[in-house]
């Protein structure tokens, strides 16, 4: 928690005029990473990332980029400045999504084949624990204080609450079909879990694990089965929740006060994952079937630009500095 706030404070000190951040997009089919400058909104580099890169995240200090190279059965760690691979981490087979502890260590990886969550020390490159969870673990979230790790299992349809110290599951919350993603609010007071096939987002009170609300979606002219929530991001003040709706080609904006859908923003095809710039002025979306990234202005809620990246962009992360 303290480290996270320190990191946040550091970014706030950066003058507005210098708000050019670097975004990294994993291209699942292209086997590479596209690097974007968020100020010019242009591609500045592309580098190889191994086979089928999907989940992507970055260390709190912005130095290390972590990429799930799913078909290489490993997590590749790159220098975020030079784009050189530094080393790999043991991940178990077919890693797809992971989450870093707010302190930057350890890394929690969902292993779909083995129904476990693997906890990896990113410094010693060793496996600290394997936590048995439900069938096909996928989404990973961590509470801002780092005490609770949440994993969603796609076929069991639960959010599993794992104590990050004992590695024991202490609660399970049933959600709708095929939960894909778990996202805490910055103050840890709410947890959002998206269910791709169920077509809903479940809002959970992490303190009691009670379900506060189940949010569903509706867009005129879009068949209900195409409304498939995947990536979720929440502004740090909790006022806006953004949900990528997959083949509906839209991002839903949910009001953090009422938990009602405020509007739908048309982006590219099969919108999958989302990432804010550190100043939260922009939200980037990966659009897998149109091979582009959309930039959403968070204040005005307008889609300001789409930029062509690699083949089948999957995940996105923006460096904190």
């Amino acid at each position, binding site marked *: *928690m*303290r480290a996270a*706030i320190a990191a946040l404070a550091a970014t706030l000190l950066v003058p507005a005029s210098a708000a050019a951040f670097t975004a990294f997009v994993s291209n699942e089919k292209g086997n590479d990473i596209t690097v974007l400058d968020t100020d010019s909104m242009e591609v500045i580099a592309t580098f190889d990332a191994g086979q089928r890169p999907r989940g992507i995240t970055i260390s709190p200090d912005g130095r290390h980029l972590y990429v799930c190279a799913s078909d290489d059965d490993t997590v590749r760690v790159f220098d975020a400045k030079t784009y050189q691979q530094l080393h790999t981490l043991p991940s178990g087979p*077919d890693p797809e999504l992971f989450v870093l502890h707010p302190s930057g260590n350890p890394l929690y990886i969902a292993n*779909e*084949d083995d*129904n476990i969550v693997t906890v990896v020390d990113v410094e010693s490159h060793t496996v600290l624990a394997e936590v048995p969870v*439900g*069938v*096909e673990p*996928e989404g990973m979230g961590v509470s801002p*204080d780092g*005490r*609770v790790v949440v994993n969603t*299992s*796609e*076929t*069991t*349809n*639960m959010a*599993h*609450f794992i*104590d990050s110290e004992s590695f*024991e*599951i*202490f*609660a*399970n919350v*049933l959600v709708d*079909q*095929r939960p894909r993603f778990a996202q805490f609010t910055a103050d*840890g007071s709410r947890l959002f879990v998206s269910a791709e*096939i*169920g*077509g809903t987002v479940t809002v959970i009170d992490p*303190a*009691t*694990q009670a379900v506060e609300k189940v949010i569903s979606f509706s867009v005129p002219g879009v*068949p209900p*089965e195409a409304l498939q929530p995947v990536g979720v991001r929440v502004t740090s003040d909790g006022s806006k929740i953004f949900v990528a709706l997959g083949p509906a080609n839209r991002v839903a904006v949910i009001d953090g006060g009422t938990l009602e859908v405020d509007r739908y923003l048309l982006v590219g095809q099969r919108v999958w994952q989302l990432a804010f710039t550190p100043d939260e002025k922009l939200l980037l979306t990966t659009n897998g079937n149109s091979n582009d990234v959309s930039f959403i202005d968070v204040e005005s809620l307008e889609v300001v630009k789409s930029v062509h990246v690699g083949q089948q962009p999957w995940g996105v992360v923006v460096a904190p500095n």
Partner: protein
Amino acid sequence: MRGIRGLIAVCLASLAIGAQPAHPAEPQVVRAAVLRVEQGNPLPISRLDLPPADLGFAGARLANDDNQTTGRFMGQTFEVIEADATPETAAATLEQLIAQGASFIVTMADAETTVALADAAGERALVLNATSPDDRLRNELCRANTLHVAPSRAMLADALAQFLTWKKWDEWFLIEGSHPNDRAMAEAYRRAARKFGAKVVEERVFADTGGARRTDTGHVQVQKQMPVFTQDTEDHDVVITADESDIFAAYLPYQTWEPRPVAGSAGLRPVTWHPTQEAWGATQFQRRFERLSGRYMRPVDFQVWAALRVLGEAATRTRSTDYAVLRDYILGPEFELAAFKGQKLTFRPWNHQLRQPILLIHDRVMVSVSPQQEFLHQVSRLDTLGWDEPESTCKLN
């Protein structure tokens, strides 16, 4: 900050004791059975299609593993009894299974046996038809205690027809086998042609004259026979084969008189499952199955898996293992199942048919998935496949 941290620590401590879903002292048990009724089918044309000894049962084992993993968190236990029977012994086997406490019977049987089993089970068990595609089971022979996880012939034919219509390959040369199931499949294609505006411009019957399925130099004669059999037809875009009995269709690709693609029972085939299906997270599912069984998953395995997952899902959602509670939930409007097909699967209330996308595959890859998105429907696009509510003569709702 320190205060918040302390508070969270207190919360966690209390949660660790109280948050686990209440587990009853005795685990609740859902007991199901898979009843495989031997059909006495002849050997397949291709040795790649030889039926494995665990056909269907392997799907059941994977489903039970999946259900058990979830049940671990719910305090529920799942058991599956595997049973083989012949059409003659099926009824007696059913009685044994019910006596052993199985109240959900997944059947791998033909239409006649399925109906007989459903009538024998009555109120005592729910029958989940995992293999029979017979359209009569979704119409005049429907039963209130029976669910159809297998797609109907109409669904399979409609799935292919939509794709061919999208391709504008709408003039069909239909070749059917001479067995009743082949004739029924051909009728499904005629119905699909009427439904989607295609034309059956030529029809022929390939008579099964018996004999060995494979001989040392069989291809020599096939190369002579098939062009002659398909000679002198009306102009057509595609050859549609209705050959559930596996007598001739596999011999047709590349052997037709006119250079035309083959679809139906060979070439481009409508199926529920295929080992090359990797969309919608299916890769992990395929690998789980392959690790468990040492072979690729076949459509029958998928259908048995889905049938047992229906139970698992109902038990999870209702937090119950009571037969009546599960049955009512499965037949009710809330039921939905995720099954690696990109959208939720639900049951049609009027005839208890599981709605599901159909894969169109050739030997090496998946070509497409129907329903094609251009075919719209007022309720669900999936209802563009098979017997829709106004057409079905079954009115269970």
